[in-house]
């Protein structure tokens, strides 16, 4: 899995590529914890290039969302597709998170 990050205005964009599974999720957790400790509170997670996610990946995203909520932060997910989108739908995660079709729409939402 590849994790790319960049900052646009006051929003931090984290893009994932590859597979978010039981092996790679701890790396993602570490990245997110780092962002929290640096005080990043507005995040977009772009899943456009993520091919695969398992329950371990969903667990990471949910745990992070809970912490972010407690800190008064915001998170928007963008560009879910294929099997990743399906996993979000089956698990009910599609309706508990704010999910937008494109990163541009997500950035707009965060303004």
């Amino acid at each position, binding site marked *: 899995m590849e994790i790319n990050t960049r900052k646009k205005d006051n929003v931090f964009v984290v893009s994932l590529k590859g597979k978010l599974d039981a092996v790679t999720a701890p790396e993602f957790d570490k990245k997110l914890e780092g962002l929290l400790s640096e005080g990043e509170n507005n995040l977009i997670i772009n899943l456009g290039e993520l091919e695969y996610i398992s*329950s371990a990946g969903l667990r990471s995203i949910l*745990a992070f969302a809970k912490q972010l909520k407690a800190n008064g932060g915001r998170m928007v997910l963008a560009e879910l597709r294929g099997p990743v989108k399906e996993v979000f739908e*089956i*698990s009910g995660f599609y309706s*508990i*998170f704010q999910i937008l079709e494109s990163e541009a729409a997500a950035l707009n939402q965060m303004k």
Partner: protein
Amino acid sequence: MKSVSEIKLAAKLENLQKLLQSVTECARKEGVGNNKLPAVELAVEEAFVNICKYAYQSEDGDIELKCMLKDSRFIIEITDWGMPFDITSLPDPDVAQDISERKIGGLGVFFIKKMADGIRYRREGGRNILNISFSCG
């Protein structure tokens, strides 16, 4: 039932890719459609991770996986020699809860049930044997 592929490995997370590669190869060879592969992969990962985390309670142990084709169903049989654990007996999580109520975890077994077209569990001679089947047509 003739098994077309068989692999036995230590039940450790670092073996996940090796296991998935073997299953995917076998599934392709047996004509499982590309659209079905992510479901196969997800079900196998969740079953494997459960065994790695819980079956042997921090002791070392193995997992054996067999793939076979029967009546145009692709069947994956996963065996471990750990504690008895019937995943088919677990209740499903409440997927309608919001972010603060939603518990962390508990989705793995649910995904196996959702992805597969059928699952069967049996305990036999100190082994947990889980059959996960996918219709391929």
